[in-house]
């Protein structure tokens, strides 16, 4: 396991995402209201580039006709078959226990601490005065 610096905090705005490649693996990093999450860019269904799909809300209804738009922007919809996944956990809407996209731990670290290492930052240059998004993989 190594810590990989994938972006400066300001680079991924709320509701935004960045696709990165870490050790040959494509990973999508998402900002949900200031919290960061990372999912593998591969749908567990048939391998589509999941992290390029639309970011959507949870459309729910406790009863027929009682519509509720919950947790705006918290779901990722696969571009191929429109299966929905929770960005925060990788769990599918339809079968959360059985069908999941691989998720990775994400932290925000000050550049000052990163400067002490160890971390990997092939494409992001780190300055001590900034904060960075770090994926552990």
């Amino acid at each position, binding site marked *: 396991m190594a810590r990989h610096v994938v972006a400066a905090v300001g680079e991924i705005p709320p509701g935004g995402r960045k696709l990165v490649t870490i050790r040959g693996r494509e990973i999508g990093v998402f900002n949900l209201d200031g919290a960061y999450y990372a999912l593998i860019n591969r749908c567990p269904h048939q391998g589509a580039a999941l992290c390029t799909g639309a970011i*959507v809300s949870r*459309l*729910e*209804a*406790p*009863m*027929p*006709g*009682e*519509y*509720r738009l919950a947790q705006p922007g918290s779901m990722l919809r696969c571009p191929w*078959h*429109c*299966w*929905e996944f929770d960005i925060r956990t990788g769990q*599918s*809407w*339809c*079968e959360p226990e059985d069908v999941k996209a691989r998720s990775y731990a994400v932290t925000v670290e000050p550049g000052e601490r990163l400067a002490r290492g160890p971390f990997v930052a092939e494409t992001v240059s780190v300055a001590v005065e900034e904060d960075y998004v770090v994926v552990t993989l």
Partner: protein
Amino acid sequence: MTREAPPSGAFSGLAGAIDCDIHPAPPDLRALLPHLDPYWREHVERRGLERENLDTSAYPPAAPINANPDWRLPAGPAGSSLAALQAHLLDPLAPRAAICNLIHGAQMMMSEDLSAALCRGLNNWLAAEWLGRDDRLRASITVPVHSPELAAEEIERLAPDRRFVQVLLLAMAELPLGRRMMWPIYRAAEKHGLPVGIHAGSSFRHPPSAGGWGSTYLEDYVTYAQGFAGALNSLLAEGVFQKFPGLRVVLIESGVTWLPASLWRINKTWRGVRAEVPWLDRLPADLVRQHVRLTLQPFDAPPDARSLAVLLDQLGSDELLLFSTDYPHWHFDAAEGPLPAGLPPSLIRKITVENPLATYPRLAAA
């Protein structure tokens, strides 16, 4: 070609079974006259309707499948004699109970009020002439399927009579069965702990095939299985089982074996379009296994016991099937019996007794 003797021997070992689908029939519409409200009796007589028998073309009396040759009567439609039912079925089978389902033009007439009046007459006739004369008999409440408010009134009227254990609809009516307009029926059924039986057939407001009118009875009959798939998909998509969580649905004469493929298809499609139906919050097949049961006959059995075992596994539960003979319809002969060959004994016990008792609370209390 000679045929075997009446299939009484076919019932050995089944004593105490619950037969979840038999079909008494009024000998003719005149038999209902004493059981109609006076207003509607005069209405029927003025129009001369009593000279008809309002047979539905879903079950043409002369079609071979619609009566076992040994169960045809010297006079009158098959199923129209209680004594014959006793001799053909109730005495040799010795069931704990048998549920009478009436399929009749009364259910599907254009006039909602006449339809409701004739359904009341049918229910009154059945209670007086059949249920009152053999205590093994139970019945479904016949309702005007195109008039949910009047149907709910009829359910309310008869619910106190515990011999009525179910509400009867047809798979194909004016609207897909899940539509909200139909909900008064489900509300009343759930309130009284009555499963809703959905019987094969159509009121022919639309062709049985969604592609248009077929030329033959063969097409109609085979296509009824797709009518069930449509009815079930509608109930699932419209959220009927979320709105009425206590509701049970029994698919009667569905053929059964179309179900696994249909569930695979709705599960698969739902994953991609589930946002259309946000109340449908779990695999549709799980809801089906929780809320839906199927009567056994006619059973579109695979050709060998090994394939049957695969199919039973695909159904995914041993609680789905309910024993039925579909008397007097002709789906099995003496040598075959009413159960498909190769069922394990534990499953036979489930199908013939335990599943019906779990499905029909009023039978368990009897």
